[in-house]
């Protein structure tokens, strides 16, 4: 059920939905901008499901810490797991004005991160699509830009590529670096050849992605959404 149709209803529906949870863990007040964002993003069933998952991960605590992610066995084989887990605690992704890393995140933050991966709605207009795209790319950009200076430097890029390729035991670091260098050059050439190039800024990053369909690449369709509890 697309939430878009019941767009106005959902924020009101949420507290009902979490009736039990509210009593147990005092559901955080959802700030208005986040709510409107979420209302587009995740259906109430999915929220329900994610909430259960959240409790499971946090072992019934109000917040999740980094260590909690270690309990996910499948994540172990992911070569860039560090970066991904990091992204969950990155305040830039959490729509907080401040910079830096959070120690722990609550459910609302968890949802915010998850909502980066929502699929496109059919009835989005051009402007919305554009914003949507930027959101997603920003997430990726923040993942690469590990020192929060708004630029992906060569070193940062190299790190990412090394991690990405670390799954293949036969590839040495040297190759990974070469590839990162090549990619960086490519990026530099896209973003104007005569400036002194220190790193990829977000604008350049957007330029690089021009014409590439990322909407299909960066969203998750949760296949086995539990449909036990409808709350409206």
């Amino acid at each position, binding site marked *: 059920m697309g939430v878009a149709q019941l767009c106005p209803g959902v924020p009101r529906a949420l507290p009902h939905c979490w009736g039990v949870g509210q009593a147990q863990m005092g559901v955080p007040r959802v700030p208005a901008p986040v709510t409107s964002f979420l209302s587009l993003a995740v259906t109430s069933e999915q929220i329900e499901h994610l909430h259960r*998952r959240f409790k499971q991960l946090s072992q019934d605590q109000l917040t999740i810490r980094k260590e909690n992610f270690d309990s996910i066995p499948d994540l172990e084989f992911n070569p860039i797991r560090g970066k991904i887990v990091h992204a969950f605690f990155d305040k830039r992704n959490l729509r907080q004005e401040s910079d830096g890393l959070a120690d722990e995140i609550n459910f609302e933050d968890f949802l915010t991160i998850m909502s980066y991966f929502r699929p496109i709605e059919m009835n989005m207009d051009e402007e919305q699509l554009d914003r949507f795209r930027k959101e997603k790319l920003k997430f990726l950009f923040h993942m690469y830009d590990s020192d929060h200076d708004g630029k992906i430097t060569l070193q940062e890029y190299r790190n990412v590529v090394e991690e990405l390729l670390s799954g293949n035991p036969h590839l040495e670091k040297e190759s990974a670096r070469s590839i990162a260098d090549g990619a960086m050059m490519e990026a530099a050439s896209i973003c104007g050849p005569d400036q002194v190039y220190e790193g990829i800024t977000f604008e350049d990053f957007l330029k690089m992605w021009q014409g590439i369909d990322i909407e299909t690449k960066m969203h998750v369709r949760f*296949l086995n959404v539990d449909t036990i509890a409808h709350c409206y």
Partner: protein
Amino acid sequence: MRQASGVALLLGLMVLPAALGQRSSESHKNSSQSFAIVSFKWDHVKEPYIIALWILVASLAKIVFHLSHKVTRVVPESALLIVLGVFLGGIVLAADHIASFSLTPTVFFFYLLPPIVLDAGYFMPNRLFFGNLGSILLYAVIGTIWNAATTGLSLYGVYLTGIMGELQSGLLDFLLFGSLIAAVDPVAVLAVFEEVHVNEVLFIIVFGESLLNDAVTVVLYNVFDSFVGIGAENVTGIECLKGIVSFFVVSLGGTLVGIFFAFLLSLVSRFTKHVRIIEPGFVFVISYLSYLTAEMLSLSAILAITFCGICCQKYVKANISEQSSTTVRYTMKMLASGAETIIFMFLGISAVDPKIWRWNTAFILLTLVFISVYRVIGVIIQTWILNRYRTVQLEIIDQVVMSYGGLRGAVAFALVALLDKDKVKDRDLFVSTTIIVVFFTVIFQGLTIKPLVQWLKVKKTEHREPKLNEKLHGRAFDHILSAIEDISGQIGHHYLRDKWTNFDRKFLRKLLMRKSAQKSRDQILNVFHELNLKDAISYVAEGERRGSLAFIRSPSTDNMVNVDFSAPLPSTMESSVSYLLREKTGPVCLDMQALEQRRKSIRDTEDSLAHHTLQQYLYKPRQEHKHLYSRHEIMHSEDDKQDKEIFHRTMRKRLESFKSTKLGINHSKKLNKIHKRDRGQKRRNSSVIPNGNIPSENPVQDFTLKEKDLEFSESEENNDYETLHLGKGVDFLANVTKESFADTPAGIDNPVFSADDDQSIYMKFSPWLSSEDTVVPSQRARVQIPCSPDNFRRLTPIRLSNKSTDSFLLADGPEERPRSFLPESTHM
């Protein structure tokens, strides 16, 4: 004009097979008892001869079609071939009074269909295919059943009203007909959609459906065929149940057979290192065996060979050598395209047979209407269901194209031709209807689908160069998404893919891939390799274009030649100069010969230098061809280590040049040093070589050389240097810098290689300004150095290194001077 003659030739040839076939019976009689030195044994070769001629005719027809782009752009080739076939069939019929050729099911299923399907499977974009597998399966299974049932039942319903007149068919016959006419045909779809270029998701869905619905078609066909055989009154519920079970057995069994043979093929290809010559053969033979095996077990043969191709491609491509891989690719394409051509032509020819035609307007028209309408309805319903689960929604436009792309083809025709006339009384009507349906869909829909796609503005595929960044980010996305699925605790698409990749890496690759292939087989690395390779190829091509590889030289000299002065160059002057040079007589002639000699030797060293460069900095093709005849060997073993080294070195080089501009690192010091060293070298050379003074002996000669020469003789240079104002030099420098900068944005097509940086750097530190003992090119040389690799900037970073080692400098020596001759050599 040419077309007309081509057509005439074609027509002449066309009639040949038919005429030959006709004459076959007579030729046998005039064999005599006595020993004949030369005998005409037509019957001996008749069969293969006619086949070969038909193939030739079909291929020639293709050539003729493509003489005119106007025609092929509008009319799909398949439609043209069918029309041609009808035409040829007409000729044969007129000459022979019987239709002697037709597309027989045996030939079609055993020889013509497998190559096409194998080609489709082997080059299937796996990721796309498996990403959309759910949708494809729904369309293929439910869609086909829906089409078959509705078409059959509706026709039967209309038949009961009596519009069609008297037919000897029951419900089962109609369902049988419905089942064979329901399936979208892979051959037809591929032939039409390849020219339309719709977006890849749409393409894979239509095409995947047409491939996978084979299992359904075969099962439905077999079930109804046997039902018709045993009679409607004997069909029980158990029989129906058997039919349903047989569907799963046939489809899953076919798939499993395919996977088994794919495994076998991958395993075999791991050990073919020493029999490279027959390596490609394995691919074809084993895949074909999978087809035949499935056929033998009465499983879906198309599914078997499709999945054989899909599953083996990754491992086989990694295991076999580059040449073998090219061979496989071309052979497969050739076979598939040839088979397709023959199929369509014979479809046309088969239609011309008065015996098979039985007209029933209502039946034929209604069939056409029903298959179109039910296809549309089916697509809409299924898409509605699918869109609830799909991440990428299928829009209305996509649905229109999908409905419209439901082409029927040779599979339906072959199936209907297989029907037994004794069991199915209305076989002829079914055959005629099928032919009409096939012709209608292939010709009419094929013709109109392109305008339709354009009119609807369907998203089309854009061909893009592979980009490193894109690949890297794509990889990152994969990992992120699977991680998100892990974290959210749901089993989704990415979860499955991630698990599969892990399994593949841990077990399958180790088992099925050669050790060396395991190493180098990474997609990102592949893209990189590809880009490097492309670079190298263009490098060589450019060298050939220029007639010399001399543009690959050390950067110290490059900085001087690297500017494009070709624009202001007066070509008349150039030609007259070369004319003078060539037409010289008298004593000068001797000198010229000597010069020629020298130039030759110098060019050799240049070339060897260039080769050295190529060897050092570029990927070598994985194997080199040696011109020794051997039936079994064409390869050398490759040296992985060296490859890797080259790879790193190239990259380092590039990064250096990259840094120097993009990161603003100053190279001036180093540059100057190099310059000095170079100049010194040059000095030594010119003093060593006596030839340098030759030209001054002859005034004409002198003139030409002064015009053309850069630093031919020491004295000349000095003269020039003296007469030259420094201001002019600066002027020149300014020009150069401007030009090189102005050029920069335009020159980039492949960003990885676009670092045209060193050039501009060198310009900044022009030799005659930065060091006192520099050599200034003569005035003319400054305006006219025709061999300027400036427009060839993609390759600039892969030049000889600045910090080149002694071997380079040694090579540099003799190479330095002769550049002056180059203009002549390249411009003549």
